[in-house]
Every structure is written in C-alpha cells, then in structure tokens.
C-alpha cells in the first residue's frame, strides 16, 4: 500500500500567477470577457514553462516547513513535477489530463496510476489542491462579469459555467491593468463563503530575461493557514519534447 502523497499533483496555479509585466497593452473599453482572455494569454501563452519552486507551508502557530520541487508544463494540461527535497524527494507526478495522472513512488520503485478523485487532495500538506491548479483555462470554465476596478486593477466576478466541473462556485479575479497579470484570486465555496485568497507579488527578472512575480501566497480564509511559493527560476519556450511528459520519462528520470 502506498503513501498517499502520490495523489498530490501540480500547483498549476503557480503557473497561473506568473505575471507578464512587460506586456503593456491598451486596456480601454475592454469587456470583462476580453480582460479575462487576455489574462489567460498572459499566464499561459507559452509553448512550455519550467519553474524551480520552494514551497513554504506556514501553520497558524507560526511553524514553517519547506519543500523544493520543479514543475515543467507544456500546453494547458501536460505537467511533470519532481520533488527535490524533503521526505518526498524523488517522488514525481505526471499529469496528462484530469483522468490520466501517474505518480512515481521511489519507495516502491513503481509508477502508479492515480484516479481523478485525488485531485481534491492537498498538495504536500499545503493550501493548494490539485483543482486549484487545474483550473487553468478560466474563460472556458467561468462566466465573467465586471465587479469593480481601481487605479491598478480590474476585479472580475467569475461564476462557474453550467455543466463545468469546478471546485469553487465563484472566484473574484484581480487582474493588473498594466500587463493583464493575475495579481490575486478570491475563491468562494459552494455556500458562498470565502474559502481562500491568493496574492502574488515581488516581480523578479529571471536569467532567461523574463520578469515575473516571484512570490505566491495562498491563504485559507477559514483557518488563517497559508502557503507561499517562491519561484526560484522560471524558463519558457525551451522546446520541451512531448516525450518528456510520458510515463516512460517518469520512470527514466526517477
């Protein structure tokens, strides 16, 4: 029997919050749908992306624990994560689609299939769940309408489309007016109560020449518990081959 940490999967939300600050586009007279689409292009408009991340889980008692992992993504769905520190070092997760997830278990030296129900589980004890991360294509999953705006941001009220499977019935998206960056999200549960908030900041210029927010903070609104992602390195358009996102590669790279 296995350690259930294998059911964790990609914090794709981390991908979603990487803000394209330089993309200064004219934003006047855009509809809420257009803003959301431009935000979507900003956060996932690359052929592939690779990030080295340190994840720090902060307890309400001020305790902290950190894990390092690398996440590679190609297209909207294919993701490969490898833990590089902690008791989960060596564990790797391959996500090809919501119903095709595999995990390499170093203790058993075996690749195991993971069912979609595991998408509800916490990612390594953090405040991220798989579904937080899988909701990459926001315009496809949510109907959007403007909520408010201020000097720097638009706030979009996004309601789950009928027939679409989403963890949250509603989210409020905070989009940066300068570059359509996803600067924050408020997640509302089915009962209408605020469940989590995500804030992104600290722009950083990465060696590859891109400037992106380097910190992501996810906070559980009910417990005050939070998780911070520090994106140590960020690379895009490296022509990652499709073969990298296969069970074969999962085993080979163990």
């Amino acid at each position: 029997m296995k350690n259930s940490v294998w059911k964790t999967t990609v914090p794709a939300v981390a991908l979603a919050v990487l803000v394209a600050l330089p993309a200064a586009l004219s934003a006047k007279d855009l509809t809420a749908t257009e803003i959301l689409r431009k935000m979507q292009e900003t956060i996932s408009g690359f052929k592939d992306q690779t990030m080295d991340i340190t994840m720090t889980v902060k307890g309400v008692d001020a305790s902290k624990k950190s894990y390092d992992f690398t996440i590679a993504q190609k297209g909207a769905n294919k993701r490969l994560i490898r833990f590089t520190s902690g008791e989960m070092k060596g564990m790797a997760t391959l996500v090809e689609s919501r119903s095709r997830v595999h995990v390499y278990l170093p203790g058993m030296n075996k690749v195991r299939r993971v069912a979609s129900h595991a998408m509800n589980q916490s990612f390594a004890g953090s405040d991220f769940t798989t579904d937080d991360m899988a909701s990459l294509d926001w315009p496809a999953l949510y109907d959007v309408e403007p909520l408010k705006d201020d000097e720097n941001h638009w706030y979009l009220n996004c309601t789950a489309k009928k027939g679409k499977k989403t963890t949250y019935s509603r989210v409020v998206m905070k989009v940066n007016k300068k570059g359509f960056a996803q600067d924050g999200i408020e997640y509302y549960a089915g009962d209408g109560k605020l469940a989590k908030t995500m804030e992104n900041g600290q722009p950083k210029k990465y060696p590859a020449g891109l400037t992106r927010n380097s910190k992501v903070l996810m906070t559980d609104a009910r417990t005050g518990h939070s998780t911070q992602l520090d994106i140590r390195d960020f690379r895009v358009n490296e022509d990652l081959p499709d073969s990298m996102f296969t069970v074969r590669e999962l085993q080979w790279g163990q």
Partner: protein
Amino acid sequence: MTGATMGGHGGRARHLCALILLVGLSHVGAAAHAADWTDKIKFSGHVQSDIRFMIEDYRGAVPGDGYKFEMNRNDVELKLKIIPNRSVQAVVSGRLRFYGFNEAAQLTELVGRDKIDPHDLQLNEAYLAVRGKIWDLKVGRMVQTWGTADMFNPTSNLSSYDFSDPLDYMAKVPNQMVEFDLYPTDWLTIKAVWVPLFKPSLLPPSTYLGFAVETSRDGCFLNAPTPPLSRNDIDTLETVFNQYDPCSLNFLTPDMAVVIPEFSIANSQAAIKTQFRFALGDVGDLDFSFSYYYGRFSFPIAYTAAADLMDSATLGPGNLDVMYNVELMYPRMHVAGFDFSFSAASDKVPGLFGELAVTFPEEVIFGLAVLRNDVILDNLQMSSVNVPTTPFVKATVGLDYTFTKWLYVNVQYVRGFMDEFNDAYGIHNYVVPALEMKFLDNVLQFRIAAAWNVDDLSAAMFPQMTWVAAPSVELILGVWVYLGDTKPRDSKSYGGRYKFGQKAAGRSVVYLKGKVSW
C-alpha cells in the same frame, strides 16, 4: 535468531569500503559541481533506526518466549545516479545494516566486532540504462514490480519477495537482469525482461516455526507440523508417534534442505508484457496489459520428508532421537496475466484497478517416509500430490477514493497471497483495507491497514502514526498484530492452520522508527 544470522556478514572492512565508495562517488558529484556537472549526478539516501518490542509471549518457539526486544536496527541507504547524457544513466544504491544485537557467546568471539556488532551490506541496484528514440535498455542488478494493484501483484513474478523483515512487506530481492522496453506508439508499450539466474524469496525469521516440532517447557513432544498428505496417512503417522511416551522423544534439529535449480539457461526466467492505454472520452481513461511469465515460484514447496526414530545415543535406553529431513523445491510455472486501471473523468467515482494471473504449475508430489534406525518401516512410505498441474487463478481487484483532503481509503480483494501456490494449503481469499488520515498539513499521519483471511478469519493489523517532525524527518510509531490461533483448526489438514495465527507468520510487535532522508 536475529536478522543478522539470516543476512550473514562478511568482513566489516569490505562493507565499509563499499559504503565509502558510494560516499566517495557522491563526493565526485560535489567536485563535479564546480565543473557544472550537477545535473549529471544525483545523490540521495536515508538513515533509519528501528526498534521493536514483542508484545506477546505465545508466538515464539516455546511458550513464555516474548516481551523482549525483537529488533534494534540501524540502516544507512545511499543511492547514486550518474547521467552522462539524456540517453544514458547508471544507478548504484546500497544499504549498510547494523542489527544491534550482540551475538558473541564465546570468549573468543569477543575479540572481533562482527559478533558484537553484526551487520551486512546489500547492493540494491547497480545497473546501466540506455535509450533510443523508441526503446530503453537496462542491464544489471535491479528489481521488477509489475501490475496495477497495490502490493498484491499476482502478475509480478520476476523479482522474488524479501520478507526477511515482515514489516517491510514491499521489499524485493534484487537480481541481475536485462530489460528491454519498446514504445512504438503512444498507446502501446512492450516490455521484455530476462533474468538469467533464479533467486528465491527471502523468508521471515519465524519461518522455521512452520516446520518445527512443538514441545512443552520440559521438552516433551506436543505437536508436529502437518505434512501435505491425506487424512488416512496422517492418522497412520499419529499412530506411530502415539506409541511412544512424549517425553521420551528427543527431536534433533531438523535438516531442511532446499533444492536449488541448476545454473542453466533452462532455469532462466523470462517475461513479456504489452501495455495498452485508451481514452474513453467523457467516461475516463483505461490502461490494461497482457503478460506472460516463465520461471519458478519463488517460495519453497514441500517436496520430501523423512523422520528417523533412532535409539538415543545421549538419553539412554527407552528414549528415541528423532531426526527430520525435509526437502523443499521451487516448482516451475507459466503465468498468463492481465491487469487494468481505470480512472473516471468524474472525481465522484473511485479509482479501479485489478490483476488476474492464471498459473500453469509444475506438478509437485510430496513423499514421506518413517524410518527406525535408518530402515524404512513397512507401510510407512506415503505420497500425495502437493501441487497438481491444474491451472489456478490468483487475482487482485481494488478501489480507492479520496473522501476529503485528509481522508483516503483503499480496499482490495485478494485471491491468493504472495506465498500461495495451490499446494495442499490451497488458495485463500483476503480483504485488505487501508485507511489514511492526514492532519496538521500532513505533519501527523495515521494509517490503519489490515489483511484479513476470509477463509479462516485470521488477520494481521498494523495501525501506524507518522509524525513529520521536519521536512525529511519522520518519526513512526506503530503496532503490528497477528490475530488468530497459533494451533491449527484442523490438525489433520495441511491447510488447517491459520494464515496469520500460525507462529510462522511472525511476532506481534510495537515499533518505533526514526528516518532522515536526503
């Protein structure tokens, strides 16, 4: 008997040299760092301490043997992976184990560390892997685990089990082999493995109790293990031994020989598997595979036995020395296998998985003779088919589900435990539930698992609590309990013993482990 006596220990210096070599190689990795080789060398490992205490005193060789330490072990495991380029890698991993029990019983043994501090070294992996566009080739020492089920994989027969530590029930015996994988399309994978030489499974230290004669504290005969014979034959044997005063029988240490297969190519193992993957649209995704294995069953099967009643050379007239000679063998088998795993698109549906293996066994006929002073007694040669050639099925089917962020449940139905081969014991049925709960950001993890034999109602249970004290640091407290009678429910049937109740299954223990990984 401690694990050290099972593992054997060669020269300490030799073991340490090997360990130092691994550490040294990791140092190469550090040096290579300067040469920007960090991506080409990976080093990992862990240190683990394991202390166990027996919580019963009735499962040992004699009543009252218990309530003492069963284990006091320390392991160092190191793994080094060298990746010269994307198409080649070499992997070496080893384990240095110190058993923690002093075995020095003679004055002369007190001058060497081997007896006072017994230890051994195991090379878990040492292989080279090369890959092309659509193929991978691996050569060297490794283990194979096939199948989609958790732990109970009837289609996985290439690597023998390592049950030398019953709590580490997922361990396998590494062996030298050649693996070739072909990836012609996205939906098809073909895997072929050749294992030149057979290696048997490692058995638990308590195994000998399955063959041991039970005596009272004052040494009088109580019970003998039931052989795989008919009831009539067993009645006959009982009649023979009932003639004697139980206290006049002096059972010598039995000789239990294992017939080792010759190192010929005919005794090689080979297996092939074709794996398919299909998308079922909105329903989900299905993976399945067909496999074939040729080789040997890795657990020993009773083959012959002889009991020689000899006038006692030490106890005087009227007393008998009883010498048991037993032979065990590893029968050949062909196994046709099928496995599948299904993941629904909906997260409301549990994950489903299963395996089915049809085994075509070599026939094993068990023969037993009773001798009196080395002469076979009339009408006391008997035999019975222990393993018929009839094909038999072993299977596992299971489901798992994540109910909440902190609760996960996995349940499997298992037909045929790893060590069952349709001999006179038969193939039994089991239910294996496991429940996992995680709290405090996974810092505190509870796991309750069990294996329940639904035929004889015996069980093994293992509740466990893990505290992740810091990243990479785990403290584990658990209990391993065997439930079931140590005495067989039918003393005249080879299959009459309780799977988990019998003494050969092992000792009930409480354990504390500490582990640091890097």
